[in-house]
């Protein structure tokens, strides 16, 4: 097939993505340089006002808080996900696919429903508090729901399967000869793990971490439902600018900041992976 005909195959898809994603994103970026009218419309007056508002204390705090929540979610997802991936890899070969399948299965159910299930579990009268009280471990119910803690649990729960898959694929690509070599040279299992296995699987760890961070920092549903509608994260703030405050230009500038953070992280990851390999 000649080049021209091959390119015809690409046109519908690329055009659709260009018109309904790239163009709207360019629109949002340009909107962010205008200002909000008195009644919520857009006044086409070019300035950087919105970006100076982003770094105001109130908003900067939300931005930093989102980064903190996203960082902690990524960190703990990797911390809990790594041993899981490692133990799955160590399991007999015939069980490995089944175990991986069981890991991703919950992920296929609806995101809202999975988040709602955690509301039921973490509620003051919820299952976890009821069990803890009945076991006489605590007297008063713990206020877990509607805190940053519950948001982090929700994010870890939703993205853990990805992290496990990403680390598992890194471990399974590992050259077994290196591990044998380390053991032949007298390295203990623990030493071999920390000096050989772990450093060589860092690309998988980095991919998993960045993945959770990126999906968490732009998340809306989890902070909204498990955080109780407070402005815990930047996603809630953007939502509010578009639906309640009706300040589209400011919401647009927040979105742009969010996209920028994401691209920066993906860029860092690409450099990191290149450096390691």
């Amino acid at each position: 097939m000649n080049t021209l005909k091959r390119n015809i195959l690409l046109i519908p898809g690329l055009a659709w993505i260009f018109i309904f994603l790239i163009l709207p994103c360019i629109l949002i970026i340009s909107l962010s340089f205008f200002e909000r009218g008195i009644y919520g419309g857009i006044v086409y007056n070019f300035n950087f006002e919105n970006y100076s508002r982003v770094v105001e204390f109130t908003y900067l705090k939300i931005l930093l808080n989102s980064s903190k929540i996203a960082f902690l979610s990524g960190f703990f997802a990797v911390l809990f996900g790594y041993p899981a991936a490692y133990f799955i890899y160590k399991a007999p070969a015939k069980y490995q696919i089944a175990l991986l399948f069981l890991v991703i299965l919950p992920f296929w159910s609806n995101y809202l429903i999975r988040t709602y299930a955690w509301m039921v579990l973490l509620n003051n009268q919820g299952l976890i508090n009821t069990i803890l009280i009945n076991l006489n471990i605590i007297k008063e119910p713990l206020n877990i729901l509607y805190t940053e803690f519950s948001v982090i649990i929700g994010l870890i729960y939703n993205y853990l399967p990805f992290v496990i898959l990403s680390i598992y694929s890194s471990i399974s690509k590992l050259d077994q000869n290196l591990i044998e070599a380390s053991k032949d040279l007298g390295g203990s299992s623990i030493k071999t793990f920390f000096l050989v296995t772990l450093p060589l699987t860092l690309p998988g760890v980095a991919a998993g971490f960045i993945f959770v961070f990126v999906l968490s920092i732009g998340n809306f549903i989890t902070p909204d439902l498990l955080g109780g509608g407070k402005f815990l994260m930047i996603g809630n703030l953007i939502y509010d600018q578009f639906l309640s405050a009706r300040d589209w230009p400011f919401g647009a500038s927040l979105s742009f900041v969010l996209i920028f953070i994401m691209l920066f992280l993906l860029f860092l990851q690409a450099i990191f992976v290149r450096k390691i390999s």
Partner: protein
Amino acid sequence: MKFNKLYLLLLFCFLYMPIVVLISLSFNKSGLPTVWGGFSFEWYVKLFQNEKIFKALTNTLIVATVSTLIASTIGTLLAVGIELKKVRNNIIEGTVFIPMIIPDIVMAISLLSFFTLIQFTLGLHSIIISHVVFNIAFVCAVVRTRFNHFDHSIIEASYDLGAKNIVTFIKITLPIIFPGVLAGSLLAFTLSVDEFIIAFFTAGAGSSSTTLPMLIYSMIRFGVTPEINALSTFIILFSFIILFTSLRLNKESVIS
């Protein structure tokens, strides 16, 4: 070795506890999460009598079916186009990657602003257009995995034997990648059935184009009714059935 097993056991408890709790609560007569009032199908009966849910379900199925049909056609062409190129083109691959990584909320507000600017009336059709955007990317990604073991020489053999482009595509390429197309379509369908934020922003005012996730969100956000447990159970089972089907069709692409 015992520690390994214990750790994995705890992991699966963590992953499955919320789902098991929801499913068991859907049979709880009392409707409360903490009091077991006995086994009953009451909430399932109520669910089937709820007309709002049926309307939302119909909307969701329309959106998911139409957007899947469009996206699987366009996405497959895109995948074939990319894979048949001899040199990699980073700009094209990057463009196709964007819909998968952009935060939903950013995509949602961008589309809302765009539709408002061009004065496009919002409704089910605008949700469909928006869902096609990310579905194209996912269909394309799944179909491309079918090319991993693709022997390009059979295409050349087909040309040598005098077959034209379209004949070669229909008789050779398509049958080989077809399991990938089906698996990609099922993935697109599930993603579209589950998608909430983009639908929420591009549905427009009024309840006529409310989809199921939008209804679930408002049920969760503004007063929980026990019917939601029954509804959740249905949706969970439905998603799992789709996943099993998809896995059977295309073993490698879902796991890897």
